């Protein structure tokens, strides 16, 4: 089964039309429609683990365990224990009765736990005060979803969704907190890459729309992971209302493009739905062959470099199917 089938983010009548978008899927579409088709519509992911993805997920969920423990009255020591216990458990393979094995000297179980302890110690007295939601819960690991004014066929609104690490105020000014891990040095150039940035603009917009706060932008807590050290830096990434308006205006263009491709691809697929013909729909999603080398190289470069008639075979051999539904909530909505 492909990702678009039985997926709440896709249109009920136009099978390949994504109706609920997050920063990942929108970013993939902006980067390269063909890559978007493979990753989001079909759900293909490279075989083998991405150590960066695994490390990032464990780092976020462990810090979330800390935030939740603190919100229930735990002190720093107790909450730190909760975070480490969580990190140790999620990096333990119960089946094999052994720890997660990473062949990356920078991102592995030891550097994960070290980074968690050093980060939480550094921001133990955090001046960023977590916002309390109307239901009394702290605004940490929040799933958001809101309707846009753009509509899909049948009048259904396009939705935007995502997950915020934390919503807080600093000297009374609201910000969205986002935690990043990187092997790169935390130079001004590292932080400059977040302006403009699809994810951060969407998160700033969400902070304003969903939580009805005058969010000024994102606080980035970046962690540089080395083999023998972790360094941290907090920087501010601002978004003005005019910048948010500009991004939202452009969103209409991207949604229109995606809709145009999905309508044609879906119509073709509905005429001849056998799985073998699904890859024919790729032709409706053009390659951006100037993006193949970006971000360390596209994982589908090896596929796109083959002649079209042989791609299905290579995809089945080198990739696995996975589910990606932006409308599935993680924490509190």
């Amino acid at each position, binding site marked *: 089964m492909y990702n678009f089938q039985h997926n709440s983010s896709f249109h009920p009548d136009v099978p390949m039309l994504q109706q609920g978008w997050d920063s990942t899927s929108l970013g993939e579409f902006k980067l390269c429609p063909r890559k978007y088709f493979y990753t989001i519509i079909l759900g293909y992911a490279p075989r083998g683990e991405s150590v960066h993805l695994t490390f990032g997920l464990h780092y976020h969920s462990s810090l979330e365990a800390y935030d939740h423990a603190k919100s229930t009255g735990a002190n720093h020591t107790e909450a730190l*224990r909760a975070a*480490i216990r969580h990190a140790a*458990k999620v990096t333990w393979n119960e089946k094999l009765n052994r720890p997660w094995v990473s062949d990356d000297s920078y991102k592995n179980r030891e550097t994960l*736990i070290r980074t968690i302890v050093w980060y939480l110690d550094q921001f133990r007295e955090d001046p960023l005060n977590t916002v309390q939601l109307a239901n009394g819960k702290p605004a940490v690991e929040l799933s958001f979803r809101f309707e846009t004014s753009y509509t899909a066929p049948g009048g259904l609104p396009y939705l935007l969704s995502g997950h915020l690490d934390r919503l807080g105020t600093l000297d009374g000014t609201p910000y969205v907190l986002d935690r990043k891990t990187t092997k790169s040095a935390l130079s001004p150039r590292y932080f400059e890459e977040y302006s403009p940035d699809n994810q951060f603009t969407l998160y700033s917009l969400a902070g304003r729309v969903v939580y009805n706060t005058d969010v000024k932008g994102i606080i980035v807590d970046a962690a540089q992971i080395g083999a023998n050290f972790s360094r941290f830096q907090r920087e501010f990434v601002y978004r003005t209302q005019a910048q948010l308006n500009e991004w939202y205006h452009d969103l209409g263009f991207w949604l229109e493009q995606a809709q145009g491709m999905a309508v044609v691809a879906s119509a073709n697929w509905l005429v001849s739905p056998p799985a073998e013909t699904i890859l024919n729909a790729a032709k409706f999603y053009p390659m951006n062959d100037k993006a193949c080398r970006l971000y360390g190289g596209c994982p589908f470069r090896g596929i796109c470099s083959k002649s079209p008639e042989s791609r299905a075979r290579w995809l089945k051999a080198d990739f696995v199917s996975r589910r990606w539904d932006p409308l599935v909530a993680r924490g509190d909505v």
Partner: protein
Amino acid sequence: MHMSTDNTPSPLLEASPDSLDELMSRNPEAWSDADLDRLVNALRAQRAKFDLSESEGKRPAVTRKAKPKAVSIEDLGF
């Protein structure tokens, strides 16, 4: 002199790399709060060491090339 009959190893011995390796290889379901604190203390000690080296500005030694001596035409035997 009073000798302690307590067989508990000292915290410093407990925080040795060997004992931490042993802890990390155990199923975390069985980790106690004391195990977690031991791990935290070891990581804090590691950080203190790193911060110290940072403040001392320790960087990998750079081999400097000796400045070439000025050479005159006469030295070259022309």
